């Protein structure tokens, strides 16, 4: 059975590329363009992994991660963000994210990290 990944990102280009690449890698990809929509999907569906940006409309990435870690602690979270400041990255790991990828990112590297994170489950 295909692993299900929820991609939360507001840049349509990044969403499309991630969807394309992860589909090619054999995953079932769901997308949400903002935190609110992501929360709705999380209530309705089951996911094996969440890939999220930090800068999101309506509900910020940090709020969303907090919510996920509270309600769905078993789902691993990978952050994909353009933030490179050490404190932001440290805060994300403190909240319990499993990995942090900075933009610009290498799609092949991202696919490997997704595979590694899912392999840990």
């Amino acid at each position, binding site marked *: 059975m295909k692993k299900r990944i929820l991609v939360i990102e507001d840049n*349509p*280009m990044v969403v*499309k*590329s991630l969807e394309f690449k992860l589909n090619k890698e054999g995953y079932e990809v769901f997308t949400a363009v903002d935190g609110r929509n992501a929360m709705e999907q999380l209530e309705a569906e089951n996911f094996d992994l969440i890939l999220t940006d930090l800068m999101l409309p309506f509900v910020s990435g940090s709020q969303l991660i907090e919510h996920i870690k509270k309600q769905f602690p078993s789902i691993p979270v990978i952050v994909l963000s353009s933030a490179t400041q050490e404190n932001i990255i440290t805060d994300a790991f403190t909240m319990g994210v499993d990995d942090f990828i900075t933009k*610009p990112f*290498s799609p*092949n*590297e991202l696919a490997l990290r997704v595979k590694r994170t899912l392999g840990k489950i």
Partner: protein
Amino acid sequence: MDILPTSFKDWPIILEINLVLGISFLILAFMLLCVVFYLRIYKNMRNSRKEKLEILLLDFINNYLFNDEFDKSKEIMEFGARHLKTGFDRKIALKQLLIFHENLKGESSALIKELFFGLGLYNFLISDLTKAAWYNKARALFVFCHMDVKIPEELVEPLINSNRNEVRQQAILYLLNQPADNPLGFLDKVDRGLTLWQQIYMEDSLKNYPGDMPDFSKWLDHKIASVVIFCLKMIADHNQFENTPAMLKLIDHPDPGVRQQAIISLRKMEVQEMLPILIHNFPRESTALKQEILKTIREIGSEKELQLVAPSINSKDRALKIDYLRIARYFNPKIAGSKLKAFNTDQLGLSKLSL
């Protein structure tokens, strides 16, 4: 009023004028409405074309980057011929490629460049650089700079001194981001002042420069004051202490902006040798420069230097007076308030303040 039918001829002249004007305005309003409709339809058509092309491009680029079964050479030819026919189409393609280039790195970045050349966008932008419209030139330089594409320098160098700020800025950024031993070599050819934004962009680009920082003193005798000001600032930011003798000479530069930056940079580098020159120049400087000198005395000087400049402070110059009193208090926190007040009454009192 021969244009009116004969039945209207008996009308009073004022009514005839009213009628003609009414009809004219009606025609004008109708024409204006037609233009508005035309522009609206044209814009909608362009937006619809843009949306369709963006979807096609997203799909095409993703296939090109991630689909191993995609026949790249054949598809790139077909896509270019079928979908990128006009300048508008190419501009949309450029925007999409730039977004991909900004977000992806590694092997994908190289493939995006391959697409850039394969879709004929390089040649499109090169032809833009030679066109008269400044915005075409600025856009072309922006894309070349952000896509890390090298172009013949003879195409860029004339644009360093373009009449438009935007073009000059993009030309400078392009040259700064090119891998070279001398990233500021273009400054030798600059014959127009650098704007504050240009200086900020240059400073920012230099932060990411991987090689050795250039010796900024090379341009301390440049004919353009803003170039000298920028180099003075950079010398202080990059701690090039070996350049302090050359900087000291600029305290007597004819341009007040250069003098001010020389004082600021030398102060930042804590060069105390400038204090006697500053005290000597103090009486003939403007208020802004006098304030800069007072600030310098506070930071790297002493009470003695403050007393030396006191006689040259005009008691009517409130800003200077306040600065002086603050520094006097800083050097001597226990100074009596009455002594400070004495400053208001006579200028001579100044030199006695800290006694």
